[in-house]
């Protein structure tokens, strides 16, 4: 945890209400997200119990599994969930835009907008990941057939769960994580995982403090958990009798309908408070202005959505159970690049995030006191424009001479440190030589070189394009990584070894 964030937590505790740790919103929020609040049955391997799902606050659909141990009912739930999710995904597949690729020599199409799934917490993402795993290999023929929409739902849920691993993606978002990205509470990170308590700190009811609201939110009888795990007391006292009553009413349609209605009402009561909180949380986030680079990251999500839709359309197979060595290395590389770029972009977008880097000496802010925008370096074969500026700062400067710095105000420009002169008055003079972002001529266009008097933030963080690493093809996996896969797994289609009782 950064000191700045820890300090915000201390201030939140003293103030009795959460404190901002961001001045802009760092994730894209869809105008029409699909909110999903799942519940799972205790003790079972990711057995769905119920869910509230929908795109509008006033129209949630309740899905219920009256006997979660029954696998047929589990897949019926999957088919019902698919009825909500798949049409939602399809609704984004109307309009496309052309994107130039290969330096404008070619063009590809991507959807103008993409779907966004919102769940309460990281455990909700895990639930969807495992639910995707349990459904994507199912088949609509052979033994244990399921509805054709079930494996398709499984593939899409797996796609979203994999996107959620990518830093900066907003395709599948856990609301607790989105909120703690923007606010620091006066409680620990463990307690922040509880959505009602977290929102209690961020937006306490009038006349109450965050601490009091969070304490109230901890009592499961007054405030049901945000799932997927249920409150054990609720299980024992209410859910178990209701499920037993449903089972006992096996042959009597009337009794069965009554028992079902009772069970559904019980589960709705557990889910509805979380449903309300989800939309309240979304409202709080929407009130923040989006960061400048948020739309660029959402483009990545739109690309991924388009790409996977193109994979699924011609009947593309499910994602494998485990990555092979090469695929795993590629995935890790992609995630690392995304993490690095996400950290830089957030700092560029948000002075409060940049402040964390200023505290650790990776950035400083100073005032331009001298500028020579016309300086030309003619020591090489041909003269090049290399303006110099001098920045005076009161902050510690830890960067060495020769280092390349960047400024969020002019991300395409590089500033090489030429001299660092600490003054007696605690101020430091830094002379920088600029290159890039000034056109091709020997005269810098207006505004491309900082002027005297401008306050400038300079940082070692760079948002420059990082070329992707080169990886061998799967059949050329080096022996250090197990060699080429012995049998080219037939796209891991189906899972005949899996038995369904």
């Amino acid at each position: 945890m950064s000191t700045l964030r820890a300090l915000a937590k201390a201030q939140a505790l003293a103030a009795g209400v959460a404190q901002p740790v961001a001045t802009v919103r760092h994730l894209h929020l869809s105008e029409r997200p699909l909110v999903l609040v799942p519940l799972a049955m205790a003790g079972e391997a990711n057995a769905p119990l119920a869910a509230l799902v929908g795109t509008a606050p006033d129209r949630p659909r309740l899905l219920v599994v009256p006997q979660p141990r029954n696998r047929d009912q589990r897949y019926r739930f999957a088919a019902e969930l698919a009825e909500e999710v798949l049409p939602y995904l399809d609704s984004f597949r109307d309009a496309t835009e052309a994107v130039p690729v290969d330096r404008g020599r070619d063009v590809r199409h991507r959807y103008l907008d993409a779907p966004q799934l919102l769940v309460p917490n990281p455990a909700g993402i895990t639930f969807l990941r495992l639910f995707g795993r349990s459904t994507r290999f199912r088949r609509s023929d052979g033994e244990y057939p399921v509805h054709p929409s079930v494996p398709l739902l499984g593939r899409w849920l797996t796609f979203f769960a994999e996107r959620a691993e990518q830093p900066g993606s907003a395709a599948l978002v856990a609301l607790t994580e989105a909120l703690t990205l923007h606010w620091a509470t006066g409680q620990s990170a463990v307690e922040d995982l509880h959505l009602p308590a977290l929102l209690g700190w961020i937006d306490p009811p009038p006349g109450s403090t965050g601490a009091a609201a969070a304490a109230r939110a901890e009592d499961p009888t007054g405030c049901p958990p945000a799932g997927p795990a249920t409150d054990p007391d609720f299980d024992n006292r209410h859910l178990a009798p209701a499920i037993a009553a449903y089972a006992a009413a096996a042959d009597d349609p009337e009794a069965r309908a009554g028992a079902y209605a009772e069970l559904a009402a019980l589960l709705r009561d557990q889910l509805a408070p979380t449903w309300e909180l989800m939309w309240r949380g979304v409202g709080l986030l929407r009130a923040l202005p989006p960061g400048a680079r948020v739309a660029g990251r959402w483009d990545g999500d739109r690309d991924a959505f388009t790409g996977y839709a193109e994979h699924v359309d011609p009947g593309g197979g499910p994602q494998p159970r485990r990555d092979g060595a090469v695929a795993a290395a590629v995935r890790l590389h992609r995630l690392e690049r995304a993490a690095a770029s996400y950290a830089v972009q957030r700092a560029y977008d948000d002075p409060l995030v940049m402040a964390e880097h200023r505290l650790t000496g990776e950035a400083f802010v100073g005032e331009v006191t001298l500028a020579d925008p016309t300086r030309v370096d003619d020591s090489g074969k041909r003269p090049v424009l290399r303006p110099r500026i001098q920045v005076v700062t009161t902050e510690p400067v830890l960067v060495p001479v020769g280092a390349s710095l960047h400024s969020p105000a002019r991300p395409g420009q590089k500033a090489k440190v030429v001299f660092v002169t600490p003054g007696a008055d605690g101020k430091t003079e830094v002379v920088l030589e600029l290159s890039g972002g000034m056109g091709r001529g020997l005269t810098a266009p207006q505004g491309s070189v900082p002027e005297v008097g401008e306050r400038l933030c300079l940082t070692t963080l760079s948002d420059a394009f990082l070329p992707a690493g080169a990886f061998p093809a799967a059949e050329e996996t080096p022996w250090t990584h197990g060699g080429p896969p012995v049998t080219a797994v037939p796209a891991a289609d189906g899972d005949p070894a899996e038995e369904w009782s």
Partner: protein
Amino acid sequence: MTDIAHRLAEIRGGLPPRRHNARTVAALTGNPGCTRRAVLDGAGVDKPKLAERIGFPARFGQSRFAITRGNAFEAQVKAGGGAELLRLVAERLGVPVPATASWTDLGGDADRPERSRTALTAAGEGAALFDHPLLGLDVAGRRVHLEPDLVAARLAGRFHVVEIKSFPVIDGQADPAKVSAAAIQSAVYVLALRELLAAGGRDPELVSHEVVLVCPRDFTNRPVASLLDVRRQLLVLRRQLDRMDRLDDLLATVPAGFTADVTADPATLTAALGTVPARYAPECLASCELAYFCRWEAHGQTAALGRSVREALGGVAEIGEVLALATGERTPEPGQDEAAALLRAAARLRADALAASSG
């Protein structure tokens, strides 16, 4: 009755000590620096009752669905005289599956300790499975009986503790928190089984440090066996048990007249608990019944927000002190200069950025 035992009985207020089981012994290894916990657990105080008495009830309910599922899976794995279990364990250990194996159910009778000792220390070499053995371990000078519903398997001359859990292993991966809880519990059994063999004059190293974890595979009910190396857990466990054996050192720091008698007046109890220092961290909420009380007591401490928060704030203990140092209202004490400078810089940068965005 020794002095120590007498003192511990006094702390309990004359009530019988709460019985430990593998789960509570395993829980002792969490937060080893907490004196309050060591004393209360050492004395065998009924912590759930104590927490309820002082108005901070613990929330460690277990869903009956989870219990039913656990029992059903265990019964299924052990069905048929353990033939399926034996095959799973042998295959996982990489030894030939024995054609026959004896199955000894050590549960039920009154002379279980005796029967368990005889059966497990007997010189036999053939493949054997021992169900429900009764094992013992000394915790804080008291004998704790462990009644694992697990099986000890003797294969190729060595014993392996087999732990049956009902959480799934999906594509070779399981919930890490559940695996580590299973590992520390199994380590308790390994330790107890080793002591049993040593007491019977046999080599304790006959008990492998690798335990076999049997879980449902993927989303099915079919069992799959995995190996867990519990050497690290054994070390941690032994260190904590040794520490509890030296309870007299700890008790010396506890004021005379300290009581955790669950029948005493709540105000008295709260005051008494305040005299024995705790080391609250947010992780306690998941493992200690008294955590909600300690959290309330630690209000205003940086560590209550998490150890990483405290470290990021330069190790300053109190929130009030942090804020006073950050604003410069308070002059740093010797040794605090660096932390104070960091906090002041952080406060200035934070105020700057917030002012810029709102202005």
